[in-house]
C-alpha cells in the first residue's frame, strides 16, 4: 500500500518547560482532507508550527513522515520544497516586498532546491493570473507589499494563492476561515476545493462547522490538551457544534 502523505507518531513537543503536544498520532492518506477542531490553546497551531519546523519548539518524542521521508530531520525550507505548506493563522507582513515578487522568489526557490530551472516570466504571470482569478485577487493587490495593510480576508486569500502556486502535496490550513465574510468564505472554499486531488492531502484547522459545509472533510479530529482525543466522520463536527467540547475534555490520567 502507498505511504500516507502525512504520518505523525506519538509526537511530543515543548516550549521552554511547558509540554504542549502530548502524544499526537495522525495519519492522512493521499487525497484525504482531515479537519481538526479543538479549544483555544489546545495546541493546534503548535502542531502546525512543529510540522513546518519553527525552531521555538523542542521535540522530545515521536516521529513524523512526509510521504515516507523523515520530516523532522529537515530544515523548514527543505520541508517546503518537499511539499509541505502551511497557511498561517496569522500571516506575516513583509514590508517593501510586493506579493508578486514574493511569489516568484518562493516558487523559484522551491524549484531550485528540487533541481528544476527558473520559471519563465510569462509562465509565472499566467499561473498567477489564473490562480488569482479563482480567489478574486486582482493585479493591484499583487503589487502591494505582502500582507502589509491587507485586511484579514485579503491575508487569508493571499495564503491560499500561495498554496495554489506552490502546489504542495501536504497542505495545512490553520484557521484560514477566520476573519472571512460570507462571500469570501465561499471564494476561499472554492479555491481550496479546486486544489483537492487524489495525490494531495490537507489538514484543515477550524473552529467552525460552517466551513466544513463548504469544504467537506473525510475525517474530523477533536484536539484537546495536546493530543487527538476523538476521530470520526463529518457528523462529529455537527455534534461538537451542538454540544461543545465538554464531552471530550481529557480525563485526568
Amino acid at each position, binding site marked *: 500500500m502507498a505511504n500516507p502523505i502525512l504520518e505523525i507518531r506519538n509526537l511530543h513537543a515543548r516550549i521552554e518547560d511547558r509540554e504542549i503536544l502530548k502524544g499526537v498520532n495522525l495519519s492522512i492518506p493521499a487525497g484525504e482532507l482531515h479537519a481538526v477542531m479543538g479549544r483555544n490553546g489546545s495546541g493546534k497551531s503548535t502542531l502546525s508550527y512543529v510540522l*513546518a519546523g519553527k525552531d521555538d519548539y523542542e521535540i522530545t518524542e515521536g516521529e513524523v513522515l512526509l510521504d515516507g521521508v523523515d520530516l523532522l530531520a529537515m530544515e523548514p525550507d527543505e520541508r517546503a520544497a518537499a511539499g509541505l505548506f502551511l497557511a498561517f493563522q496569522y500571516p*506575516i507582513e*513583509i*514590508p517593501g*516586498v510586493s506579493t508578486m515578487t514574493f511569489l516568484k522568489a*518562493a516558487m523559484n*526557490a522551491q524549484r531550485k532546491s528540487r533541481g528544476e530551472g527558473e520559471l519563465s516570466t510569462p509562465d509565472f504571470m499566467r499561473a498567477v493570473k489564473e490562480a488569482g482569478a479563482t480567489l478574486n485577487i486582482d493585479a493591484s493587490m499583487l503589487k502591494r507589499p505582502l500582507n502589509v495593510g491587507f485586511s484579514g480576508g485579503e491575508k487569508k486569500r493571499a495564503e491560499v494563492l500561495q498554496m495554489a502556486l506552490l502546489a504542495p502535496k501536504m497542505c495545512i490550513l490553520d484557521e484560514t476561515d477566520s476573519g472571512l465574510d460570507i462571500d469570501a468564505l465561499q471564494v476561499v472554499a472554492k479555491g481550496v476545493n479546486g486544489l483537492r486531488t487524489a495525490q494531495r492531502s490537507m489538514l484543515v484547522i477550524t473552529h467552525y462547522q460552517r466551513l466544513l459545509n463548504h469544504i467537506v472533510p473525510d475525517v474530523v479530529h477533536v484536539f484537546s490538551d495536546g493530543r487527538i482525543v476523538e476521530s470520526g466522520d463529518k457528523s462529529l463536527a455537527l455534534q461538537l457544534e451542538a454540544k461543545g467540547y465538554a464531552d471530550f475534555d481529557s480525563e485526568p490520567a
Partner: protein
Amino acid sequence: MYFYAAPKSTPAPTSLDEVDPELLAMYDKLGIPLKEREILAGVERPNVAVDAVMDSVSVVTTFREELAKVGIIFCSISEAIREHAELVQKYLGSVVPVTDNYYATLNSAVFTDGSFVYIPKGVRCPMELSTYFRINEKKTGQFERTLIIAEDDSYVSYLEGCTAPMRDESQLHAAVVELVALENAEIKYSTVQNWYPGDKDGKGGIYNFVTKRGDCRGDNSKISWTQVETGSAITWKYPSCILRGDNSRGEFYSIAISNGYQQVDSGTKMIHLGKNTSSRIIAKGIAAGFSDNTYRGQVSAHAKAKGARNFTQCDSLLIGDKCGAHTVPYIESRNATAVFEHEATTSKISDDQMFYCQQRGLDGEAAVALIVNGFVRDVLQHLPMEFMVESQKLIAISLEGSVG
C-alpha cells in the same frame, strides 16, 4: 605607500576587447556587462557611456563623439585640463576648496585622474554617463577627481560604480566629487560602491574617505545623490548639497550595508541658503555581523533661507545581535520659517518573518536578501534601471554569511 601608481607600461586600450578581462569579469559578476547595458538600454542603440578609471587613469571612453554632437563634454579630467582649461579653472575647487578637509587636500595635491562632464545650456544628456572606478595596483591609494557642470536648463544622470579585487593590505580611496548645477539644471548622481571590505576577520579592505558635494548654484536647480554602499572596510562619506539658488532642491537617497567588521559612517549635509529651498533625505542602514553602521546628517537653514523645508527619514535594520546602528542628526535653523522633519526607526528582521519566508521555500540567506531588498525599496526606486538590478544582487552578495 605610493600616492600615484599608473597601471604599468600597457598602453591605453582602444577598444573594450583590450580591457583587462578581470575588469570585464567584474562587470559580469555584477550582471551589468556593457553588452547587457546595451540590451537594457533599448533596441536601437545603447545609452550608457562609460569612462572606466583604473588606478586613476582613464582607460576607456566611449560614446564621446555622439555626446560631442550636442555639445556635451565627457572625458577624463586630465584631458579636460589640457583641452578645456577655462572651464576647469572656473569650476574645479569651487565647491570643495583645497583646504576643505585632510583627505580633500591630499586629493587636490596628488589627484591623478577622474571624470569631467560638461552639459551645455538647455541640453538634456541623452544617455546615462557612467564611470567605473577600480583599484587594482598593490598598496596604492586612489585619488580620483570628478567635476560635473550642468549649465542653465540642462539635465544629466551620472553613474559611478566601484570595485576592487581582494588585497591583504588596506588601501586608501580619497576621491573628491564636485557638482555644479546652474539655473533650472538638474544633476542626478548615483553610486554603487563595493570596494573590497576586508576578509571575514577584518583584515585588509579599502578605506573609503570621499568628499562629495553638490552646489545648487542657480535658482530652481536640483541635485540628487543616490548611493548603494556595500563595500570598504571603513567608509566616511557625506554627499552634500549646498542649496544656494532660490527654490533649489537637494535629495539624498542612501543604502548602506555593513557586514563582517566593516565600519560605515555616512550621511549627508543639506545646507539651505536660498529662499524656499527644500531637501529630502532617505537613509537605510543595514548592519550585520560585527559591523557598525552610522548615519550622520546635518540639515541647516541660514538666516536668509526663508521657507526652507527638509524631510529626513532614517531607518536602520539589524541582523544578529553583534552589530550596531546609530543615527546622529545635527539640525540647525536660523530661520523661524524653516520646517524640518525627522523620522527614525530601528528594527530587526524578526524570527517570524524568517520562518514565514523559509516555510515558503527560501533558505536563510535568500530570506534575508528578500527582506532587506524590501526594506530598501524606497531608495532602490531612485536608481536608474540598470543599477537597480545590479544593486539587488549586490545586496544579496554582501549579506552572505550573515545568517546561520
